[in-house]
């Protein structure tokens, strides 16, 4: 089973990387109102049904992959 974790800076958290990306895109002529930069983590898991895998990944996000104080996360599972 494959899993993709998306980690994003929470709304309201200063994201200087996103601001720099936005400024550069605008400079190139793209009409971008806002850019936020997060992180993608691809994982491969063995066994486990989707439900328990999801619960497991949630724990992984809370404990390590994201800092819940400043980041939100999304878990997508793919068979």
């Amino acid at each position: 089973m494959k899993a993709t974790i998306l980690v994003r800076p929470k709304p309201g958290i200063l994201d200087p990387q996103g601001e720099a990306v936005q400024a550069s895109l605008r400079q190139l002529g793209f009409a971008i109102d806002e850019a936020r930069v997060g992180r993608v983590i691809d994982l491969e898991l063995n066994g486990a049904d989707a439900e328990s895998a999801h619960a497991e990944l949630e724990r992984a996000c809370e404990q390590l992959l994201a800092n819940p104080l400043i980041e939100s996360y999304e878990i997508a599972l793919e068979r």
Partner: protein
Amino acid sequence: MSAEPAPRIAVLVFPGSNDDRDAALALERLGAEPMLVWHAEGDLPDVGAVVLPGGFSYGDYLRCGAIARFAPVLEAVRRFADDGGLVLGICNGFQVLCEAGLLPGALRPNASLEFVCRDVDLRAERADTPFTSRAAAGQALTIPIKHGEGCYFADEELLGELDRNGQVVLRYEQNPNGSIGSIAGVVNEHGNVFGLMPHPEHAVDPLLGSTDGAIVLGSLVDAARERLLTAA
């Protein structure tokens, strides 16, 4: 002064720490007996305080301090802190303590996205902590910073809590990194764990421009010695 016992202070060494020796040297000059402790150790030696030094533990992978917090020695530090032991985190050490939940808040990339390396002016908000007892409340200190991710963040609720509890110990006079409330250093609720982004160990010799770092580290040495004498 030489008759005073030298309290032992552990300085942790992670793969990627680079201010461990500076911290040890500074502590030694201030009258302590520093002991370098490798991150894989499951126990701390018998010490009066623990210092988590600056650097780039585990390459700062994922987030600064996120991996170091799982080092075996951190469990020992957690027990030490829970028992009231004195713990000081400098720069990367501050990041590790935040990630480990031993200190509130988090450190994000500098608002400028630039690595900032220079002396900064600070204000000691409190002089009644084991880390600032050699200062006067409101005293101005000049200590260098050198970091890319020192932008302290706390949400509104946490910020209110920090203010109410008087947990903000150091503030920047001119905010160099976008830290909320210009916060440069915070203590935990019990006042025995302190983290700061500035590097006191780089400011203990007039040759380096300032000796104000000795106020912070010297306070820690005093407090560690006091504990040694009380325990004896």
